[in-house]
């Protein structure tokens, strides 16, 4: 597909209703969208839901299965919309509930799904619940938040935003008590000890499920319950509540997904899957991502091998979400101090690139715009165990603007074409929520969807091809993972298996060409078929299987028995 008039404009319309597919999220490719930054339908300088709806054909063309939205709710926007002031309203700049229902319907017609962030742990201090709670302690909302006469309790809980907050308690001059907040002081934590809060939040979920939403990323779930002497993370009561939520969702709304945002080590995160997969179905694998970057910089597979070897097994109906970059900083919470210093030294040479405990940069600039490396990282993302999450704009290699501060640098407008405002909006350029990138390397004149659709060798078309290859092989989403050792530390090789669908993935993490000898005796007699070109490679014999890879090269092979190949 090389022109904008072909392909996505006439996408096939299909229905999601039948047959049922409760494990769809295990095979899906997710795409994270910032509504504010994707497409502006009314020319006010801010992206909106209608704008996103108008781009669904593009996402279908690309091969996206599920769109993940950041918060869409009414909010004073002091924390990117994670400070929700009404859980059942759409932020007016984004549109209204009618726009949202239309988005979901149009996505479903294209065989795509929509999930959205929902913050479970806290609200904005502007939420009517909080306003009522502070002014009327004896009223119906008096107990909706966590209040205390002193700032002493729960001192074991760490402070998450160490850059800005000095305590998890803040004094409220109205109620004359301290309120508890694990995040910013304008985001009071809801009091889940109160059964009314538990009910109210389930009602919020049902409200959106009734609108047709396919699932939620439940934000900041580890912190729902606190207790004296406990660090306030992963409390057993939190798990009990999430199990209850899952049960109620499953009973009324089949095939929906609950993805938990728990920025923790995999051994802690697995608890959110429940013992039998009866809690959240998905969770992000946070520590994998920085280790991908470490492994390639060190030209050694061990950072990846170690973290995957130490990742516990998860229930069969659950799945990791994996990503290279997202709207947050490249978080370095899940690494040792030494490793953090290393990552800063390697990937954040300018102090402005640092943010909280991480690096606020997009994929392409992190990799110094090296096409080979971008392809290698994307290849890893699409082949390692888990469902891949793409971040909007990374499919065309968009850049960032580190001078915007905090995380805004990676949230600039999507670059659709070389027209005014990158085709994102018809507003005055000064009116945009953030300026479009203009620099000579990553600016929208150089990097945009329209130009890349026209070039068959573009990153966009390459990414689309790889998503299509992935889609042909359910093993990438469903299969087992087994790493193959080799004497070359710079090569990461693994086999994925799902019934007869077997693939071998070989990745050269070094900038130099590398040979690798693989022990493939288990597949003796098989003819490996390279998956992008269906090239037949020499038959696997008894001797070690020799492959040579160019610098930062990778290859995927199908391992079907000989008679089954083309």
């Amino acid at each position, binding site marked *: 597909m090389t022109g904008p008039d072909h392909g996505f404009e006439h996408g096939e319309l299909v229905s999601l209703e039948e047959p049922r597919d409760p494990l769809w999220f295990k095979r899906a490719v997710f795409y994270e969208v910032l509504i504010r930054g994707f497409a502006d339908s009314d020319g006010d300088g801010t992206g909106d839901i209608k704008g996103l709806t108008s781009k669904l054909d593009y996402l279908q063309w690309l091969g996206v299965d599920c769109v993940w939205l950041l918060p869409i709710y009414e909010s004073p926007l002091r924390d990117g919309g994670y400070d929700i002031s009404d859980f059942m309203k759409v932020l007016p700049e984004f549109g209204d509930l009618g726009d949202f229902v239309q988005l979901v319907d149009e996505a479903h017609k294209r065989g795509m799904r929509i999930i959205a962030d929902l913050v479970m742990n806290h609200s904005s201090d502007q939420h009517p619940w909080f306003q009522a709670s502070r002014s009327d302690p004896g009223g119906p909302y008096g107990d909706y938040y966590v209040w205390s006469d002193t700032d002493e309790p729960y001192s074991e809980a760490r402070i998450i935003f160490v850059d800005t907050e000095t305590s998890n308690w803040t004094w409220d001059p109205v109620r004359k008590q301290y309120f508890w907040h694990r995040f910013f002081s304008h985001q009071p934590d809801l009091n889940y000890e109160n059964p009314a809060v538990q009910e109210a939040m389930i009602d919020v979920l049902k409200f959106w499920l009734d609108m047709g939403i396919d699932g939620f990323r439940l934000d900041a779930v580890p912190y729902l319950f606190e207790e004296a002497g406990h660090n306030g993370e992963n409390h057993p009561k939190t798990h009990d509540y999430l199990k209850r939520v899952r049960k109620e969702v499953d009973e009324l709304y089949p095939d929906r997904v609950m993805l938990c945002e728990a920025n923790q080590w995999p051994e802690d995160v697995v608890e959110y899957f429940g013992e039998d997969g009866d809690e959240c179905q998905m969770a992000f694998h946070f520590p994998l991502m920085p280790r991908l970057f470490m492994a390639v910089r*060190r*030209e050694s597979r061990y950072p990846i*091998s170690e973290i995957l070897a130490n990742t516990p097994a998860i229930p069969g109906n659950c799945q990791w979400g994996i990503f290279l970059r997202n709207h947050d900083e490249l978080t370095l919470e899940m690494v040792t101090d030494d490793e953090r210093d290393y990552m800063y030294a390697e990937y954040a040479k300018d102090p402005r690139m640092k943010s909280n405990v991480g690096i606020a940069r997009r994929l392409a600039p992190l990799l110094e715009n090296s096409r080979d490396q971008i392809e290698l990282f994307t290849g890893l993302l699409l082949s390692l165990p888990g469902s891949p999450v793409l971040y909007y704009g990374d499919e065309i290699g968009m850049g960032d603007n580190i001078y915007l501060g905090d995380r805004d640098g990676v949230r600039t407008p999507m670059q659709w074409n070389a027209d005014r405002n990158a085709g994102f909006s018809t507003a005055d350029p000064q009116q945009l929520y953030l300026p479009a990138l203009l620099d000579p390397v990553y600016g929208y004149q150089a990097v945009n969807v329209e130009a890349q659709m026209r070039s068959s060798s573009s990153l966009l078309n390459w990414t689309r091809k790889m998503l299509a290859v992935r889609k042909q092989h359910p093993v990438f989403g469903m299969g087992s993972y087994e790493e193959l050792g*080799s004497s*070359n530390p710079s090569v990461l090789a693994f086999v994925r298996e799902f019934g007869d669908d077997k693939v071998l993935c070989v990745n050269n993490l070094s900038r130099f060409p590398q040979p690798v000898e693989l022990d493939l005796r288990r597949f003796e007699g098989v003819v490996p078929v390279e998956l992008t070109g269906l090239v037949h490679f020499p038959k696997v014999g008894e001797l070690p299987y020799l492959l040579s890879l160019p610098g930062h090269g990778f290859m995927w092979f199908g391992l079907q028995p000989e008679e089954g190949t083309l």
Partner: protein
Amino acid sequence: MSDLDAALTAWLPRQRWYGGKGTPVRSVVVEHEERLPGPVDVRHTLLRVTDEAGGAELYQLLLGYSDAELEPRLKPGEVGLVKGQHVFDAVHDPDTTGVLLELLAQGRSLSRLVFTGSADLHTGLPARVMGAEQSNTSIVYGDEYILKMFRRVQPGLNPDLEVSRALAQAGSPHVAAPVGWLEGTVDGQTTTLAMMQVFARNATDGWAMATASVRDLFAEADLHADEVGGDFAAESERLGAATAEVHALMARSLATAVAGPDESVDTAKQLHARLDAALEVVPELAAHAGALRTAYDQVAQLTGDVPVQRVHGDYHLGQVLRTQDGWLLLDFEGEPARPLAERTALMSPLRDVAGMLRSYDYAARHLLAERGGDGQLAYRATEWAERNRSAFCDGYAAAAGTDPRDDAVLLRAFELDKAVYEVVYEARNRPTWLPIPVGSIERLAAPVISEGDDR
């Protein structure tokens, strides 16, 4: 000489693991053979090989006998046609290697061979022979076990088995636990003929890891060793810590002693003697002889006690494996070319530290030898070596509680001794690499300044 002896006389010197390189074989005598159970006629065979210089060695073979023409995959191991039978090296025969695993699992005793294996061994695993090795042949079963068959047999308990077993029993995470062994009686002594250990999956050796780091450094010639992405210092530090832990555990589980000043005098004499021998082979060393002897004399003047214990004995980056859990130390055999008594002698663990420090010098500089001289790269290589040597010592010091660099006189003397050995080796085998150890001697033999000064 029998037909078999004659065939072996021609075949043996061509084998990579044959030790008597360069000296013609005078005679080969089958000293003992014993048929293994199983469908194929395979005989465990001990050969006494005498060379023209009068040296005699024992070698261990598994010889298969076949009436039919050999399969293609066994053909390269064919020894010859003896009395109408094709005789072949049966380690390449999967049926035979399968039988060995069975015998270990069963703990079988044959007339002169005793197989011992842990109770829970898995059998029926596919076997493959590992690539070229110096003095052993290793067979990997599935990805679970590795069986090392000693080709050249020295009577007695093999030190690798002895030390690995002791360390595994003491719970060390840094050794591959032995899970089986084969013993026989040789010259009246119970002798280790083979040992099987847990196979380290997904592992690569330290040399491959270190040289990947150096290659990365050389691609960024304007960056320093502590600035490049491929920095290896964190690995080196962990390797140093692992080494110290293993040393401590060896000291606890095996013999130790204390060497007094008299023994330091003896040590210095040995160092001088090895230098004398080296000077005869490489006269160019004479330019450094004075500095070397000064360093050795300082050892003789040591007044304190030196703790001695069992050590690895041939420690370098090729003897350590990076697994996905950390570092493993391999091959506690000492230098296989030396007599057993010397290989099991108690020594200062600084010998091993010196060996590894020398190995860092090699890792840093061997790519230079391939590229030819380049002052800029040579400078960077020195920085890399210094950075990783320091990190190794830091890790060692943190785990051991004592810094090996505090024993500067001994450590330097041992490093120099190792470098002198390398000079002889390179002069004989790889003259283009000679500048590596010679350069090291020039640096090391300079008067002692505290390493702390420049860090």
